[in-house]
């Protein structure tokens, strides 16, 4: 149980990191090679309220796409890492409490034995 939990808490950050590392370059290549959408409706797309006059070949925009991609995954990774650290701290705290309880029980034991006699 503890092993699977530890495995899971290590697995998600690792999976996120691998996803980030593996898909970033693939994504950049994919974004460059995927087909263009040439629908006339797009010319009035409100997705672009007042686009500046600049080249739309994709080259100049790749860093922005990469930045968004990197920031999103890095944030998830950082948050999950923070969660796994908290979990580890809590496990440590539980162990400390268990030990303290065991010591208290050990001290009480002779008293209860005396009472039983």
């Amino acid at each position, binding site marked *: 149980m503890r092993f699977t939990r530890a495995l*899971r808490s290590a697995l998600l950050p690792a999976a996120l990191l691998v996803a980030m590392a593996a*898909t970033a370059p693939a994504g950049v290549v994919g974004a460059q090679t995927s087909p263009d959408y040439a629908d006339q409706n797009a010319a009035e797309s*409100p*997705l672009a309220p007042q*686009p500046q006059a600049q080249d739309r070949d994709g080259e100049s925009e790749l860093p*922005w796409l990469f*930045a*968004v991609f990197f920031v*999103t995954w890095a944030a998830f990774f950082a948050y999950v890492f923070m969660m796994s650290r908290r979990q580890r701290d809590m496990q440590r705290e*539980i162990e400390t409490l268990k030990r303290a309880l065991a010591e208290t029980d050990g001290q009480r034991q002779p008293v209860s034995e005396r009472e039983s006699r």
Partner: protein
Amino acid sequence: MAKASVIDVETGPRAGRVSLTRDGLFAASAALMGLTLYMVFFWVPTELNLGVSQRIFYFHVPLGWLGMLSIMLVAFASIMYLITRKEKWDSLAYTTAELGVVFSSLILVTGVIWARGDLGWWWTWDAKLTTTLILWFVYVGYLMVRAYAPKGSQGARFGAVVALFGAIDAPIIYMATVWWRTAHPELNTGPLAQDVDALGSGRIYVTLMVAVITFTVLYAYILVERYSLRRSEAALDEIHQSVA
């Protein structure tokens, strides 16, 4: 009593079910994320006007939806806590507020990067952006209240009140483009969509929906993980208080 609650969280009868849900959500979010990344980078066509940077849309919109979902969940859990005074509702409110900070930060950062890439500016004080920034402050304010207010029910009550006031911001963010002229694009999806043709290609719409579902499943997974951790933290606090 406190000891019992820790045992419930760690090895209780519900633990197996929770673990199964967690594993299922993890597997689903990993599989869906793979599909989404494939669709975003290889399947969906490049939008003609916005170019490659339009693909930011498939990250930015789901993050926006989840930022809004978070504040609604915080408000709902806070109301339930004020009515029932059950600790589980407070844990849910705290967890969703923490996730709200992560997601609303990402909304702002991805939006800012997209605006810089497409429009040439980082930030403008228009209604949509400003109300979203206010939402971020609401979440941070909530967590600060929880951190500095007395532990226990008093802090939870203060937090619940902050969350309820903060929830007023959610409909204002959604309606900002309807009520005011903003630099932010109009609503493209949902019942109040102002321009449904904006998404143009069917592939753009399908990819957006898959991305929304994927991020929602990922959100659910992180929520379940963080919620169970939060409940364990609360149970440990109880033990410390009873021992002290």
